[in-house]
């Protein structure tokens, strides 16, 4: 059974860390659906969010192998949904004549924003859980999707506790 898993990896903000993590996935044949990385509130510490797939054994190996990297400080496997996940997408969509109004309605329903306008197009900023992004894309696609950029998911645990507990 292949599950999609979201894994947070706290890493030293050091030279080559991204290459080590990415190399681990490619070298051992693990999948990466998306990967984001940016600094955290703590100096010298970056956080990666990796969305990956695999059966139970593969996911166990992924977390163990990540933990084994010297620059990895903590690995949090959120499993299938114990975390709040958000993603942002920038979507350039054709918007002419009657479709202009349709795009605006969709944007409104999804509480997205128009961030650039031309007589022939809208550029939309949409934020939400990855499934919500999938949903807005599905509605916009028939209207003429010109370009799409997704950030990949970021995730944070629910509740009052931070990652240190």
């Amino acid at each position, binding site marked *: 059974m292949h599950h999609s898993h979201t894994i947070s990896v706290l*890493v*030293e903000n050091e*030279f*080559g860390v991204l*290459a*080590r993590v990415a*190399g681990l996935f490619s*070298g051992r044949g693990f999948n990466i659906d998306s990967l984001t990385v940016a600094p955290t509130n703590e100096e010298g510490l970056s956080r990666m969010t990796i969305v990956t797939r695999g059966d139970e*054994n593969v996911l*166990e*190996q992924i977390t*163990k*192998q990540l*933990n*084994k*990297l*010297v*620059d*990895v*400080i903590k690995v949090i496997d959120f499993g299938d949904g114990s975390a709040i996940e958000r993603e942002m997408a920038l979507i350039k969509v054709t918007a002419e004549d009657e479709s202009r109004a349709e795009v605006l309605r969709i944007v409104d329903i999804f509480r997205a924003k128009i961030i650039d306008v031309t007589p022939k197009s809208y550029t939309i900023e949409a934020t939400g859980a990855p499934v919500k992004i999938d949903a807005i894309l599905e509605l916009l696609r028939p209207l003429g999707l010109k370009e799409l950029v997704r950030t990949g998911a970021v995730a944070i645990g629910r509740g009052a506790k931070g990652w240190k507990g």
Partner: protein
Amino acid sequence: MKMNGARILLESLKREGVDLVFGYPGGTVINIYDELMNVREIRHILPRHEQGGTHAADGYARATGKVGVAIATSGPGATNTVTGIATAYMDSIPMVIISGQVPTPLIGNDAFQEVDMIGITRPITKHSFLVRNPKDIPAIVRKAFYIARSGRPGPVLIDFPKDVQIAQAEFKWPENVDIRGYKPNLGGHPRQVEKAISMMLAARRPVMYVGGGVILANAADELTALARRLQFPVTTTLMGLGSFPENDPLALKMLGMHGAYAANMAMTHSDLILAVGARFDDRVTGKIATFAPHAKIIHIDVDPTSIRKNVRVDLPIVGDTKDVLAKMLLELDKQAASLKELLKNLTAWHEDISGWKEKHPLSYKQSTSVIKPQYVIQKLRELSNDDAIMATDVGQHQMWAAQFFEFHQPRTLLTSGGLGTMGFGLPAAMGAQAAFPKRQVICVCGDGGVQMNIQELATMVQNRLPVKIVILNNNFLGMVRQWQELFFDKRYSQTCMELPIDFVKLAEAYGAKGLRTEKPAEVEQVIKEALAHNGPVVMEFKIAREEKVLPMVPAGASLNEMVLNA
């Protein structure tokens, strides 16, 4: 006191207790070599090729348990160490490799002799460091050695740009090493140990399956004590040879593709496998689906990624094997009655095993007309000291050495088990001999592999390293030839060496002693003469050309599907 980066490096190595390094100078390490003339405490051996130097540092590490150190210049010097680094990585050998790098401002510019060494070695190092500032060197060296030798050991690379070697800084040795992302879990969990003991006491057909992790953790004494207390039969992997004395009645000898019949049968029929510092490699398990179908598996390993990587495990114990085995011994002290009961229950199993041992011992057909390689190995054991160190290359001779030498002590077999590197034996033997000038160091190799690092004969002669090199010469790349014979209809594609080499003359050209025989009756005399000589000796034995390594589990077959005679 301020000093240049090169000197800070050497002072740091001194603090780590380094007294011997293997290295090759060049443009981007010339400053280190200049400073080396001022540092008498560090002995330096110049190999004839960086690969040889790296394997020598590896051999030194395997024989001593200390961290081996190799130095190479940037570019080709560094890339020549890659096979050596990968070899050490696959066998978890503690090493620190220092590669020169072009000056920091030139990095990325395709400068002369520039290569992205950190990038190249990322998948084959435990960790790596790029030195950017001379004041960071002591902390980097301290961390590199700590990472290399702790937990599951492995090679660590320090890439050291030339301008940082020249720049000045204060030398300040850090008192402690603390890496927040690296805390190896060494202490085995007591509850898991208790559970393991109760499983072990309930076993009827137990086997201890022991790998190189026991040798790396210096846990051979604990292992031997535990096996004898429990009367558990012991089989070792290639890397585990020496962790349990093979002349002990409990020894099953090596298991796996070329393992002993009794060892593979015991694994297949066991109801409990106690895996200690071993990783269920494909050469050991054969076909995974039919591997040890009746056994519960307890797996002790310091590296959590080794556990459940290839086989299901019923009870994992993450921890240093020495610590876990010691805890097991203590726990057993509390279980005298159950232990007595266990020993009674094992009688039938011991009888099964004796039966397998008698039915198909490791054996070969002796000949009076042509030298059998197995005979040479047996004679080596008979004529060498108990603590003699043997290094091997990779191939048929390696398997014959593993099967017939009978290892008694840990760290007496230096062999490339994981990567399977031809050309490893000769320089590894050199490294071990440099560490132990007084001990017998024997290198067993074939006529193929020995030519891959033959140039190190010069290093041995120059540095008075009296390694005894045994070439089992069949004028074939024998292991591949064996596969071609068995699985490719005897189509010997590119495995006949065709040009016979005069290894005696070659030895003499380097200033070493050369001996040769093709007569079985002369084998003993040649070995005696070589062992008595106080310099390096090359012994060339012309052996039965098409002798095969048997038994053999064909790739992909089950462990109990051994080819015994072919």
